[in-house]
């Protein structure tokens, strides 16, 4: 892994996680969440936020006890050399797959909404250029990019407000009309969009102020929660529940209603800028995977693994041109994996570490 000497400011740390979280999820969230939880999905979101924050807490707790050590070092210290390396390999596989899933889903969305007849491979190539340039940089540069993305896309969420003109506030009632079960059912759907905070594992050793590490996770999660609840409530008010269940990307559909005298079909502009947001998600996960490979094979820096991964991604895109349906199936299954990695793993790790500490204490 890269040397811990590179410093990341608190702000950069927050935005890095926050913008990694905001990926494809926010586009489909109202649809998935309504299917599971109806109009009370925002309560599930709140619960999801709590779980995500608790998960982040466990992560930071473990990392805190191994100051100066990278993710790799911490894993080996807690789990032992070989188990640690195996788990790291799992993380590499997971993050690399995340890159692939996000990338191909994004390509599919662009194809359906903007570039109808564009070759998938070309789109993959075009998307990977900025991702490649970014992921091979030092972490500091990536942190600055996250800040840039934050400022550059600041105007996007308020656009959704335009649709409030035709909102039906009554759609939000009754709160929890079908009881508790749908809300609990919606938690799974609301856990996935919070994923991205697990990059804290990677970022922790590089933080300028490590005491504020947990606060950073909390801040990033809360910022994302705000966006998600905002988007969910607006689309619930704007659409009928039937519509929300049938529109694949309700958030984009919301923007379709935005018409100004000088521009129609605003969702296209929105989606074009959205690519910038997604590059942050992609490059963060790509960097995670590349750093993992770097410490697994013990290479000098993470640039070579990045090239390797990019070539792999293009290779996959060459052979496999997923349709939207296939992509949905894959990402549906992959969601379970990511919940395991992002939520169950930190808890297990923390338990492992606690057990070890207690065993040591008993020995003494």
């Amino acid at each position, binding site marked *: 892994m890269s040397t811990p000497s590179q410093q990341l400011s608190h702000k950069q740390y927050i935005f890095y996680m926050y913008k990694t979280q905001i990926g494809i999820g926010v586009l489909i969230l109202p649809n998935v969440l309504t299917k599971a939880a109806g109009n009370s999905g925002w309560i599930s979101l709140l619960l999801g936020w709590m779980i995500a924050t608790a998960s982040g807490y466990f992560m930071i707790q473990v990392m805190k006890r191994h100051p100066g050590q990278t993710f790799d070092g911490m894993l080996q210290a807690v789990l032992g050399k070989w188990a640690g390396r195996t788990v790291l390999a799992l993380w590499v596989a997971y993050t690399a797959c995340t890159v692939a899933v996000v990338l191909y889903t994004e390509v599919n969305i662009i194809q*359906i*909404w903007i*570039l*109808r*007849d*564009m070759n998938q491979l*070309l789109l993959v190539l*075009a998307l990977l250029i900025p991702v490649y340039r970014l992921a091979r940089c030092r972490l500091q540069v990536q942190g600055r990019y996250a800040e840039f993305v934050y400022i550059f896309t600041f105007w996007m969420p308020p656009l959704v407000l335009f649709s409030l003109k*035709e909102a*039906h506030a*009554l*759609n939000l*009632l*009754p709160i929890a*009309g079908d009881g508790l079960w749908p809300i609990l059912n919606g938690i799974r759907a609301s856990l996935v969009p919070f994923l991205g905070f697990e990059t804290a594992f990677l970022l922790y050793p590089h933080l300028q102020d490590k005491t504020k590490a947990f606060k950073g996770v909390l801040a990033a999660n809360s910022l994302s929660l705000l966006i998600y609840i905002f988007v969910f409530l607006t689309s619930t008010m*704007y*659409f*009928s*529940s*039937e*519509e929300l269940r*049938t529109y694949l990307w309700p958030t984009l559909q919301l923007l*379709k*209603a935005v*018409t100004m005298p000088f521009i*129609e*079909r605003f969702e296209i502009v929105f989606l074009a800028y959205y690519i910038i947001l997604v590059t942050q998600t992609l490059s963060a996960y790509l960097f995670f995977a590349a750093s993992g490979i770097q410490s697994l094979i013990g290479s000098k820096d993470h640039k070579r693994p990045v090239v390797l991964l990019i070539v792999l991604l293009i290779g996959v895109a060459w052979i496999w041109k997923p349709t939207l349906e296939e992509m949905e199936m894959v990402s549906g299954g992959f969601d379970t994996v990511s919940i395991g990695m992002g939520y169950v793993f930190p808890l297990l790790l923390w338990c492992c570490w606690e057990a070890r500490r207690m065993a040591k204490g008993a020995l003494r």
Partner: protein
Amino acid sequence: MKLTKSLVLTLILIAATGCADRTELDESSLVTIIGMDTNDNRELSITGMVLDFNEESKSQEILLSGKVQSLREARTVLGAKSAGEFLSGKLQVLLISRSLLQKNEMMPYLDVVFRDAKFSNSALLAACDCSVKKLMEGKWNSQPILTEYIRKLIETGHRSEMTVRTTLQNFHYMQTEEGVTAAISEIKPVGKEIAVTGTMLLNHSGKMALHLNKEESALLLLLQNEIELPVSYTTTIHGEEGDSVVSFDMKKAKAKVRTAYSNGKFQFHIRVPIRAEIAELDGPYHLAADKKLIESLLTDEVEHAFKRLIGKLQAHKVDPVGYGLYARAFQYKQWKEVREDWGAAFGQADVDIQATIAIDSFGVIE
């Protein structure tokens, strides 16, 4: 080295901008109005208005028509008749003839509109009380460009409370929402002009159920709280001293709804407090002295009109106001039993409506 690298990169970027696949404006046919009609053979006849960018032609619009099975097929059939590539992203108005609305459900026809991301969903939807072709072929006095004419007609008609304003997106909402039924504007050629004639109400399945005239449309908009104040309203009051035509502007008006459920029926208590400014009064009344009397007479009239409207809606089992949303929000348990067919349940509901009119002022004369 660095310079060459960035040069190559720039070149790639310039080459990859996608200009090879561009669409020239004057080589494309932008369709602005689509009219849907049916004849006795149950065929669908489509009329499309296409913008003409050719400098030498006199009119700015070209009319195309053809017989098709579906809206998407129209793209091929009409596209064959036009010089350019057929594009529906700039659609402004979708006209549907009354006879088609009476015969068939609308949603299956409009599937392509909502499925195809390129379709503009902000186009206005309007019914037309004549053959669509006649309306679109006609030469109308007021405006040279029909698209602009119809669009403005509906927009101003809506602003002066004569009709609803329904975009395709709104229509999709109203058809898919269980607690509401659709309402679209209606236009009709009158002499050498086109006029807004009111509102067309559709039932849950999207067939025509009821037509509201302009006055009823105003009351409907009031119940929907979709009005732009002030709203002017004219009615006749019948007092002991004689009849009198009164026009007034509503300065403040808002419908408030309370719901309940008893005896197996939904109950809606609607209160509509209105603050009015008298604009015209031609009877044997003295405004300043008889203010209380006129207020109560006006209240009677307006309340009566509201009751008639609600009665009509209930008789035809339509709920364009969206009382179903209230029922769902506050009487969820009972709502779940009737959600499949809210229109019928609304038809049996007890609706009690109370209007109160308070006269604020009566102009510059007593």
